[in-house]
């Protein structure tokens, strides 16, 4: 078992990670009451809020997978974030003043103030269901990648990440989470920026940064803005400008406005203005940040055009397919693929030379040759991936592994350790926020509201710590279970998003449709959840009969939200009329 990390890397990784944990413990010392534990005593400044929101959203898989997305699919994923600034403005105007006026601990508390207890319980239950599963995934997803690339035991990595998070989250609550997230974001941004700069410095001397962008563009990777040309593309393609602006706005509204793991990041703000600026900070910097991370993936693609790269980045899968009957066929494909390495590099160098010399005819010829060679390499790789996917239990996707494979293979000692610290920081920042939110929702919306309403502040503080610890153990156990079945991860990620539309619908009705009352919205929420689950699962169950229902799951947020409002209005008409009849003898 090789680790692929030198002593310096271990020191940098361990030192950075432990320093952040100790900082979190130190900054949140002396927390003696439930208000301090869950709302940080309303002392958070806008920059803490802004960085905390950003760090909560960016999990380890974001930093592993996004460069891989750029490498394989180009820049178009950036469009996914176009709805975020719009959503942040709406939340700033509509939700923040309401949450602060009622001085709520959780977003779902507001639902009871506006409707009734069943609706509050429905909102919090949907959140707990979706987020508790996602909490485990946040931990296990990077652990699986670290196992395949470094040989680390997945279970031990899950326990390690979970234990580090629990040390400061149990002890310091919201304040510890938010304070550590500032340091974690600093480590993440520094690590990613250095990786990008070092990558460009490792290019061949004749290849400059702008040249690399031109080559990326000629290879179809600078697809920053894409428009759907058919209705099918509009509905099923997740990443185009329309889905980004419309469906992305709904997704961001539900995630940042109603998901307690985000809402808790800003409820502890010093004032409405501090919270708003924190949200708008995220609105301003999120898209440029994602652009930068995707660009690293695109620059990595160009790097590999000039240096040999594996046909498939998951070495375990490669070994597994080579050991089967399809092994010789796969090995032959690999040989053909690597035979193209030099030709691809030479043809792009020819294109660069012709372009710099102003020889347009030679430039066009070299470009055509390079593009043909790249297309051939892609076809061979696709055949290889098809062989891998035929093996039972295989994992035919290697996108999440591309960036870390590059880091381990090409980056210098020390920087590898820093990038590993980036992965740990990202995993810890997301999971600490999730555990913190799960504990506060269970305490405030379930335990304090429905099980033990009259208890001392000390009791609730102690209970919050136990709940954080309990949810942490659940997340670690689920992570270990999910680690055995990696394909589960994709389903659970999607499953989480199946609840967002309904939750957002409850809040949209609460904010904008004052005539709809509790009973109508509660049943509308239940019906909608059934509808959303049906829209997602029926095409999977029978493609032949329900294939027409197959739409990108990003749109389910909008459908869920609109359906709650629609069903709520209809039910209110019916229930309202019945209520009137009952009133009249």
């Amino acid at each position, binding site marked *: 078992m090789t680790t692929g990390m030198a002593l310096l890397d271990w020191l940098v990784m361990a030192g950075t990670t432990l320093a952040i944990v100790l900082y979190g413990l130190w900054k949140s010392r002396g927390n003696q009451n439930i208000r301090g534990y869950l709302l940080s005593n309303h002392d958070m400044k*806008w920059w803490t809020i802004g960085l905390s929101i950003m760090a909560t959203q960016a999990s380890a898989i974001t930093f592993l997978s996004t460069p891989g997305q750029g490498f394989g699919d180009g*820049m178009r994923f*950036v469009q996914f974030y*176009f709805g975020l*600034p*719009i959503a*942040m*403005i709406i939340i*700033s*105007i*509509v939700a923040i*003043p309401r949450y602060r006026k009622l001085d709520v601990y959780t977003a779902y508390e507001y639902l009871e103030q506006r409707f009734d207890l069943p609706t509050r319980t429905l909102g919090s239950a949907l959140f707990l269901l979706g987020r508790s599963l996602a909490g485990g995934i946040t931990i296990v997803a990077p652990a699986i990648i670290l196992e395949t690339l470094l040989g680390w035991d997945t279970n031990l990595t899950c326990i390690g990440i979970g234990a580090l998070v629990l040390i400061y989250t149990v002890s310091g609550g919201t304040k510890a989470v938010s304070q550590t997230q500032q340091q974690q974001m600093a480590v993440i941004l520094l690590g990613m920026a250095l990786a990008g700069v070092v990558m460009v410095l490792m290019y061949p001397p004749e290849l400059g940064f702008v040249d690399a*962008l*031109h080559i*990326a*563009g*000629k290879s179809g990777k*600078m*697809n*920053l*803005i894409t428009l759907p040309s058919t209705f099918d593309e509009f509905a099923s393609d997740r990443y185009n*400008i329309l889905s980004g602006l419309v469906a992305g706005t709904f997704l961001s509204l539900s995630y940042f406005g109603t998901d307690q793991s985000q809402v808790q990041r800003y409820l502890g703000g010093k*004032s*409405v*203005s*501090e919270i*708003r*600026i924190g949200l*708008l900070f995220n*609105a*301003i910097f999120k*898209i*440029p940040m994602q*652009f930068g991370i995707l660009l690293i993936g695109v620059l990595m693609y160009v790097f590999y055009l000039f240096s040999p790269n594996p046909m498939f980045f998951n070495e375990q899968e490669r070994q597994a397919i080579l050991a089967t009957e399809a092994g010789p066929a796969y090995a032959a494909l690999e040989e053909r693929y690597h035979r193209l390495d030099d030709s691809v590099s030479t043809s792009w160098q020819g294109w660069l030379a012709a372009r710099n010399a102003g020889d347009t005819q030679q430039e066009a010829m070299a470009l055509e040759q390079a593009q043909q060679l790249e297309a051939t390499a892609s076809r061979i790789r696709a055949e290889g991936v098809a062989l891998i996917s035929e093996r039972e239990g295989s994992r035919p996707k290697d996108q999440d592994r591309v960036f870390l494979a590059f880091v381990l293979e090409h980056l210098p000692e020390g920087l590898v350790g820093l990038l590993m610290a980036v992965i740990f920081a990202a995993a810890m920042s997301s999971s600490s926020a999730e555990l913190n939110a799960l504990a506060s929702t269970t305490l405030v919306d379930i335990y304090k509201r429905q099980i033990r309403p009259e208890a001392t502040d000390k009791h609730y503080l102690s209970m919050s710590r136990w709940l954080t610890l309990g949810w942490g153990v659940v997340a670690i156990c689920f992570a270990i279970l999910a680690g055995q079945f990696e394909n589960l991860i994709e389903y659970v990620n999607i499953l989480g998003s199946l609840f967002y539309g309904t939750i957002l619908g409850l809040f949209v009705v609460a*904010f*904008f449709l*004052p005539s709809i009352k509790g009973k109508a919205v509660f049943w509308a929420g239940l019906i909608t959840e059934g509808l959303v689950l049906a829209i997602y699962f029926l095409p999977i169950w029978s493609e032949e009969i329900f294939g027409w229902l197959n739409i990108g799951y990003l749109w389910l947020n909008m459908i869920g939200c609109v359906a709650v409002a629609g069903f709520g209005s209809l039910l209110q008409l019916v229930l309202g009329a019945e209520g009137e009849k009952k009133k009249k003898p």
Partner: protein
Amino acid sequence: MINLSHMSQSPQYSEEDQELQRLFPLVKRWKSLYLFVLAELVGLIILFFTLSRFFS
């Protein structure tokens, strides 16, 4: 319904505008900050479109 008083148009700054000015003296009104965020989004889309074309 929705409270838009913090986006007041009057020459007198609302209480919320004044709080914004305390945090960010350069920005006078919330409305200006919201418009700046939207303008940045539009600017980024135009920039991305231009980059797509330029490097294609």
